């Protein structure tokens, strides 16, 4: 094998002078022809910045401050725009995370290919159509998609199209930047398989950038781990998995486990069954037990009872059939219980969350919380329901108003639900911050959302949900937007709240591993119907339904493939 790409002492900064952020620091590595290399790191590690620098796509304020990127006979770091364009043919191509949104909605897929052929002139005009057909079939799409428009294709299909477009210039090096992150779990798995097969068939060199060590270990032969702008470990996938040298790599690895295993342990979590048997709580506790004054109000604990609920949305377009989002679902969530609702996107799990919080009305069936009829609740009585049922949102970056301080965000529900004012309300806000482990509380209270990390924001969101002293929390994918290392902390917090506050938890997720760790019971949803339900550990260890098996198979499992 010969060296294809050599990166020497590369540094990339955002901004200039004293304000500059050093996103990539003195990185050196080389790639051989035909290698499949994974580049893993958490958000802010500089992995995408490095990817963009390699392809010459760095945008201001990012700029290369030093080092060389030797590709063939040229140094990409110093190429001008015109030379870069020339080099794209047979050079380096990139597939972006949002590549599926990079397609022009008013041009057919065929025209997207033709645009590239026209710009580079490497395919003779009479071969345009056949070459385009050849390319889409490489990514396992039927040739009919060429006549479709981007809006008519699913996210997975569009991402495949963008891979085919990247292939159309016969690149020697393909850079995949989180190619499957924005896709549904099942689709993610399928697209990833296509990429792996494609790489083996076409023999191009590939760099796979991802935050998910599981995916990378499963697909790449060699893995580079990036942390704070530096490559902390570079070795074969096998070595990284079995004998990681760096502490950071070890920490990342410790957060992976097989949800099917008999005993599942994550940092901070003992296996549930072991724990229940021994009768001990999760750990020494990330939270404080509730103050007496705040809990004395609650004497009756209510259950959420959902009976034969269906939700049918009107047809999206004239002439199409109505969409059944939830189909005859029944369950009961007892006080203090934790129930997982799992399924791929479109399975109706988020619709159920909307129904039981009265945001949407069911088409048929009944939803009762204690003696309150949630299905028929009027808008003016929302406050009554929300004092007992609260929600933790998926995206902590969107769930906090960027212009309000943490204190304001938390004071509002305290004032609205508990009737406390002035100093009393403030004391309660600081209590809440302490409860979710954000101390020093005074400093956090004064911060704006953009001054907090993702994990800290999610803690603020949880604190807000607790402000009304609810009996039930609905957590809609609470950790899917967070880095692996932050996930365990947020999950531990939810678990402690349930154990110590007696809050019941409806945990909506596609991540079966986290469901295994924090819930007692599980319901698997497929196209609005419950296909399987029961004890979480039992269901995941012995799945009966084929859909559950598919969900389990879609989880990247580094141990499975490398071994």
């Amino acid at each position, binding site marked *: 094998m010969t060296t294809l790409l050599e990166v020497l002492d590369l540094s990339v900064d955002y901004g200039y002078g004293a304000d500059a952020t050093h996103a990539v620091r003195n990185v050196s590595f080389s790639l051989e022809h035909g290698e499949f290399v994974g580049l893993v790191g958490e958000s802010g590690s500089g992995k995408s910045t490095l990817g963009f620098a390699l392809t010459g796509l760095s945008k201001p304020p990012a700029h290369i401050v030093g080092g060389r990127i030797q590709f063939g006979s040229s140094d990409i770091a110093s190429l001008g725009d015109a030379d870069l364009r020339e080099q794209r043919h047979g050079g380096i191509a990139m597939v972006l995370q949002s590549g599926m949104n990079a397609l022009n909605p008013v041009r057919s897929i065929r025209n997207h290919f033709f645009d590239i052929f026209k710009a580079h002139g490497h395919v003779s005009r009479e071969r345009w159509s056949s070459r385009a057909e050849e390319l889409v079939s490489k990514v396992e799409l039927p040739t009919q998609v060429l006549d479709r428009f981007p809006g008519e294709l699913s996210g997975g299909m569009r991402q495949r199209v963008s891979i085919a477009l990247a292939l159309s210039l016969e690149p020697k090096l393909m850079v995949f930047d989180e190619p499957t992150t924005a896709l549904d779990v099942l689709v993610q798995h399928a697209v990833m398989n296509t990429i792996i097969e494609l790489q083996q068939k076409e023999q191009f060199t590939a760099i796979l950038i991802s935050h998910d060590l599981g995916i990378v270990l499963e697909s790449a032969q060699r893995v580079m781990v990036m942390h704070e702008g530096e490559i902390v470990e570079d070795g074969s996938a096998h070595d990284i998995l079995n004998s990681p040298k760096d502490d950071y790599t070890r920490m990342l690895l410790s957060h992976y486990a097989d949800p099917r295993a008999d005993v599942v342990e994550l940092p901070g979590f003992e296996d549930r069954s072991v724990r229940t048997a021994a009768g001990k709580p999760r750990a020494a506790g990330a939270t404080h037990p509730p103050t007496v004054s705040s809990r004395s109000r609650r004497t009756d604990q209510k259950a959420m009872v959902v009976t034969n609920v269906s939700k049918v949305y009107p047809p999206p377009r004239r002439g199409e059939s109505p969409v059944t989002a939830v189909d005859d679902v029944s369950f009961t969530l007892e006080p203090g219980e934790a129930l997982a609702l799992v399924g791929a996107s479109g399975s109706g799990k988020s619709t159920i969350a909307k129904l039981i919080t009265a945001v949407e009305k069911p088409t048929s069936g009944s939803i009762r919380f204690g003696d309150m009829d949630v299905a028929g609740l009027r808008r003016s009585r929302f406050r009554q329901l929300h004092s007992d049922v609260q929600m933790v949102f998926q995206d902590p970056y969107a769930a906090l108003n960027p212009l309000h301080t943490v204190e304001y965000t938390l004071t509002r529900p305290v004032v609205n639900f508990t009737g406390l004012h002035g100093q009393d309300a403030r004391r309660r806000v600081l209590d809440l911050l302490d409860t979710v482990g954000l101390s020093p509380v005074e400093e956090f209270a004064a911060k704006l959302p953009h001054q907090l*990390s993702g994990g800290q924001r999610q803690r603020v969101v949880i604190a807000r949900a607790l402000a009304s002293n609810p009996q039930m929390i609905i957590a809609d994918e609470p950790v899917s937007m967070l880095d692996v290392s932050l996930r365990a902390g947020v999950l531990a917090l939810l678990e402690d709240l349930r154990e110590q506050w007696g809050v019941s938890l409806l945990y909506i997720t596609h991540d079966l591993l986290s469901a295994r760790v924090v819930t007692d019971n599980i319901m698997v949803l497929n196209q609005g119907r419950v296909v399987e339900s029961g004890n979480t550990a039992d269901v995941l260890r012995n799945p009966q339904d084929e859909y559950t098996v598919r969900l389990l198979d879609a989880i990247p499992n580094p141990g499975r493939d490398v071994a």
Partner: protein
Amino acid sequence: MSTHTATNMKAPQAPIGAAPTPFKVVARVAATIWSNGKARIGIIILGAFILIAIFAPLIAPYGAAENGFPRSTDASPEHWLGTTAAGEDVLSQLLWGSQISIFVGLVAGLLSTVIAVLVGLSWGYVRGFGADVINFIVNLFLVIPGLPLMIVIAAYLSGGGIGMIIVVVVITGWAWGARVLRSQTQSLRSRDFVTAAVFSGERPFRIVFREILPNMTSLIVGNFFGAATAAILAEAGLEYLGLGDTTIVSWGTMLFWAQNSNALLTGQWALLFAPGLCIALLATSLTLINFGVDGISNPRLREGAKK
């Protein structure tokens, strides 16, 4: 537990800065607008006009209505821009007239922005029948051609002076702003933080004005400058047509009297040209400032401005 604390410590502890005070926010916004070259020119022009308006009594060589001078004279050392057919000093009228234009522009711009905000935000937030009713009313104001409507209303309220002009300009000027703000409200209302506010037990009024409104400040400021520009032009237009109080001295009435006395035929171009240029300059300055306002909400434009 140990791992839990470890993850806690792993979270990058950003240096804690104090929450920005309102003063700092205003200063930052001003700095952003100032950093844009076009906006800087606009601010300088607008500032000059405002200073002239404030200090007109000191700067103007004569009173606005002083008419004891020789009639229709050309420029001379005593009367830099000549005198009118009624024997008033044109330069003094120009300086005094800036007060009316700027006053009408700012007040009418402000009022129509306030109405646009109130209507646009509630329209964007409510659903169902209420939204349809507002939709009908706003569309009504949008389809009726602006100038004829203005003329009809002004003729109906004839002789009301500046107050009447402001009312007419506001009635005909709020609808577009309301429509733009409504679209933005509709896109913001589906954000998670708005849903979260509902879960926090907030009442709709508070959600609209405390959660949604602060997130569209730049749009509202932009709308204000746009409305002020339109108001200045409309005021000049109405007065030029003689629909306002023709006894007050403003740029519009200057044009009206210049036209009445056939200033062009007598070769007194300054009578038409000077107020016309001032109106154009003032309107331009507000539009230039709006380029800078765009940069507040869209950092990408700011980046471009620096390069």
